[in-house]
């Protein structure tokens, strides 16, 4: 969820003043409003990346729909992955209010010119991962996203309100799956622990690099696109999660994790940032697989989308003829 943009220019016009005033009084910018080109570009990139993340994020969990070990869990998981498709829809719609189409954005994704959240480049290796993704990954996503409900761009903020509501439902479901498994057999408890061991550090990486290595944070905050720094959000997530891990009975794989009485927060170790950069650069365990899957599905569906378009054209033409 990093954002890159041109250097911000000094406000020159009345329009630009109005824009900054709107932001300053925490009102929303709407599609019809004037906005600086850099703001628009930043938003398109961020909203598209967020939409892509929802769509790519269908894969790691979707891989387990066919193997869900109970019918109840199958229904929950299928509904969750379906929600992710729905989130993708809202977000592409929000991006469309900024003048780019879903098809254009998807082409940017499958040709590697736009990114998605790196967390989805980690594999799902057991059914416990479905729970862990709900608990840790959705948990981290919520920490990142709740502030976005108040983001300055109206359609994005409103989409986020709906998405956050559903995400916290998913997070509770994930936690509940893990809790149930921890009450099961030894093999199930081992499966949960193994899953948490794999997902803990990647979850921490979801907040992005440390603040001192995050060049765009300041500008995004000034624009009201971002409202907290990466490290603030990461700390909030750790503080929220540690007691949940204790309640669950799993060990978080960080020897440096300890309550800091003075700060009233948990101290914790640093993720392997080199690994994050490798994953961002495309060399994570699943980057190639995720992109190949999405590309195949998109290309294989081309003839259907073309047929729908041709049919709609014909229908329109026939209706116009009738009307004439």
């Amino acid at each position, binding site marked *: 969820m990093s954002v890159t943009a041109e250097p911000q220019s000094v406000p020159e016009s009345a329009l630009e003043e109005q824009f900054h005033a709107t932001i300053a009084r925490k009102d929303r910018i709407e599609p019809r409003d004037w906005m600086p080109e850099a703001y628009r570009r930043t938003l398109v990139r961020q909203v598209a990346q967020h939409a892509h993340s929802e*769509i790519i994020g*269908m*894969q790691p969990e*979707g891989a387990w*729909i*066919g*193997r*869900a*070990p*109970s*019918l*109840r*869990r*199958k*229904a929950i998981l*299928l*509904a969750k*992955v*379906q929600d992710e*498709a*729905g989130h*993708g*829809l809202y977000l*592409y719609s929000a991006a469309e209010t900024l003048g780019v189409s*879903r098809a254009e954005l998807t082409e940017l994704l499958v040709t590697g010119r736009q990114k998605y959240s790196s967390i989805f480049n980690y594999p799902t290796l057991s*059914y416990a991962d479905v729970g862990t993704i709900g608990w840790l990954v959705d948990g981290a996503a919520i920490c990142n996203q709740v502030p976005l409900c108040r983001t300055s761009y109206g359609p994005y903020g409103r989409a986020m309100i709906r998405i956050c509501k559903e995400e916290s439902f998913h997070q509770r479901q994930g936690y509940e*799956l893990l809790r*149930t*498994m921890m*009450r*099961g*057999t030894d*093999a*199930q408890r081992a499966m949960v622990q193994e899953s948490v061991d794999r997902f803990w550090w990647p979850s921490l990486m979801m907040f992005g690099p440390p603040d001192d290595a995050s060049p765009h944070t300041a500008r995004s905050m000034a624009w009201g696109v971002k409202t907290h720094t990466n490290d603030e959000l990461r700390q909030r997530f750790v503080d929220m999660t540690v007691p949940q891990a204790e309640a669950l009975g799993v060990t978080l794989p960080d020897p440096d994790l300890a309550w800091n009485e003075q700060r009233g927060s948990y101290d914790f170790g640093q993720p392997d940032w080199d690994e994050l950069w490798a994953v961002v650069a495309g060399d994570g365990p699943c980057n190639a697989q995720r992109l190949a*899957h999405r590309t195949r*599905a998109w290309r*294989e*569906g*081309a*003839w*259907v*989308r*073309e*047929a*729908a*378009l*041709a*049919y709609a054209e*014909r229908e329109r033409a026939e209706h116009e003829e009738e009307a004439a």
Partner: protein
Amino acid sequence: PATLATYCLMLGDDALVLSQRLAQWCSNAPDLEEDIAFANIALDLLGQARLLLARAAAADPGQVPALPAGSPVPDEDRLAFFRDGPQVRNVRLAEIDDGDFAQAVVRVLLFSAWRLELFTDLVRSRDAVLAAVAAKGVKELTYHRDFAGRWFVVLARGTAESRRRLVAGLEAVWPYRDELFATHGVERAAAQAGVGVDPAGVEARVEAVLDQALGAAGLERPDVRPRSGVQGKAGRDGRHTEALSLLLAEMQSVARAHPEGRW
């Protein structure tokens, strides 16, 4: 009770197996709207399957697979995850591979047009549970049929490529049509007992629906013969295609690895 239970398994397995197939479209569909629609249909069928398997277990606990003493696996999951192919009773139409989107559309159209008519009559079942499942299902299946019917016409009248694929899909799916209306002994007994529906009795209504779809699409009925079974037996007798055992292998893999698991 054995008849009622087996009859519920038949209807339940149809829904379970097709749900499993359709869920495979999730993240593989032509666009997000279809990812969502296929997931919706799969969810509806999964819901029907759960109610029907639970009813089967209640009607005849003897048909529920045994697990190690103390296993917390509920009945619906024992039935879904611990039966082998020969005990699974779905029609073969539900289990065949999806092929492409066109073939998936044809399969859903045929399946839901048929099941909708069955459920329309099943609403009057003497078994209150079955009647309630059917009443709920009628609404769902109407949506499924209309979704598939719309795409059926769009693909037929879209491009030359989509029409070619739709016709191919029709020819691939149609040989499994006759099996839908071949009354199994259990279905006959269930119908006679007033709890079930004889599928032969809904054939004319289903045909009318399909003819309407074919008409709107500007297509003839495909000129293909029915796929034979093995010594006259097919899905309802547990004599399936090779596709089912692979489907079950995947579907049951986690559950079977943990026969005493809690999920």
